[in-house]
């Protein structure tokens, strides 16, 4: 077995572009997922029983099926209902919806953890529902949802690799192709694994740093 890393390093421009796509999908997808998930959680909390049940069903389906099946449905099934998407937008939409299901659960548990009395107090002094969400629920739950949210962001980073299967030109697809062309699979995949490992470790460490900072903030306020 030979291990010649130079065949990989010769392709640096392609690798950089693939890494860029991976990070782009990750960042945009995570932000979209968090925003969408937040609205789903708000809908379930304030939208009445029917909406809660309907959204709860959708979330359960999204959480109970593999991400790969979901993107196959969007990418291969989409054209049959008039939704022909290129791989990149299909992947972005897929990861945003998938992530939103998980983020909505994180926010929902955050909502539930805010004491009822605080919301009732807000109602008593005449705050509108929007004000209650913005000035009571959001600040109080931020601390609670921060650790699982960062955790979810790391999970979504790893899920972006799955998008290579529907030929999104991200890093896994790029390096697999280079491995096949140069007949250097082991080298290409080692570089690939290393990239994700380092990125996930850095994100995890940053997350813990933010957490400790915020925790101190909360206890100084309490």
């Amino acid at each position: 077995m030979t291990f010649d890393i130079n065949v990989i390093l010769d392709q640096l421009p392609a690798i950089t572009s693939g890494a860029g796509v991976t990070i782009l999908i990750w960042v945009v997808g995570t932000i979209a997922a968090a925003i969408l998930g937040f609205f789903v959680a708000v809908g379930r909390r304030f939208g009445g029983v029917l909406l809660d049940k309907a959204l709860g069903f959708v979330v359960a389906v999204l959480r109970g099926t593999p991400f790969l099946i979901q993107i196959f449905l969007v990418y291969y099934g989409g054209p049959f209902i008039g939704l022909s998407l290129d791989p990149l937008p299909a992947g972005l939409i897929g990861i945003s919806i998938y992530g939103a299901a998980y983020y909505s659960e994180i926010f929902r548990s955050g909502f539930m953890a805010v004491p009822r009395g605080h919301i009732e107090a807000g109602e008593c002094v005449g705050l509108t529902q929007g004000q209650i969400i913005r000035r009571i629920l959001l600040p109080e739950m931020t601390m609670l949802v921060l650790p699982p949210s960062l955790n979810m962001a790391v999970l979504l980073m790893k899920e972006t690799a799955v998008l290579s299967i529907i030929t999104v030109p991200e890093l896994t697809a790029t390096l697999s192709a280079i491995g096949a062309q140069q007949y250097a699979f082991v080298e290409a995949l080692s570089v690939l694994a290393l990239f994700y490992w380092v990125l996930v470790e850095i994100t995890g460490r940053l997350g813990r740093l933010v957490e400790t900072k915020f925790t101190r903030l909360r206890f100084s306020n309490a």
Partner: protein
Amino acid sequence: MSIKLFELLLYASIYTVLISVVSILIGFAIAIFLSGMLLSRKAIFVVPAQIFISFFRGVPLLVQLLLIYNMLPAIGLNVPSIVAAIIGLSLCTAAYQAENMRGGFASVPVGLVESAEMVGLTPGQIFRRIKAPIALRLTFPALVNEAILILKASSLVSVVGVVELTRMAQDLAGSTFLPLQIFAAAGLIYLAINWLVALAGGLIERSLPGLPR
């Protein structure tokens, strides 16, 4: 979509369940060793276990599977793709299960262990009769969770050519031009399997003895 197609999907889902169950069991065995290493307080054991866990939790499963699938032939081991798939899934779930188990063993009340020592139980007896049962009871819900995660993650082994539920759905979608119906049906089967696992897990959990306080 005909009944015949659905039957084919159901048949393929047997492989999904088989691969997942075998991987979870192998992963469980590896995780016992890993959690033992983590709790040993000796750097020569703790550090390798930490690196193993960090790697298999930090790299996407798809990349792990591709790496194992291509690495094994490169070092002269030609194994069927289903074996490569099971190795990949087992190592990945082992890393997650080890973290759960470490937490479980760490939460065994010290008082119980001390009283066991007082009445003269050997370290082996303490492990078998006190620590292991309590740790397993504590981590059982996490184990059910992990089983569902692995069932979903097993869809990725379709990429290395194992014909399980997802691969069968892909092949059928390609040959029948009914991707919407086929992938929806496949999703439904995954949902049903996961629902059954969650249900069974809940029932088993309720039948387990309560925890000492």
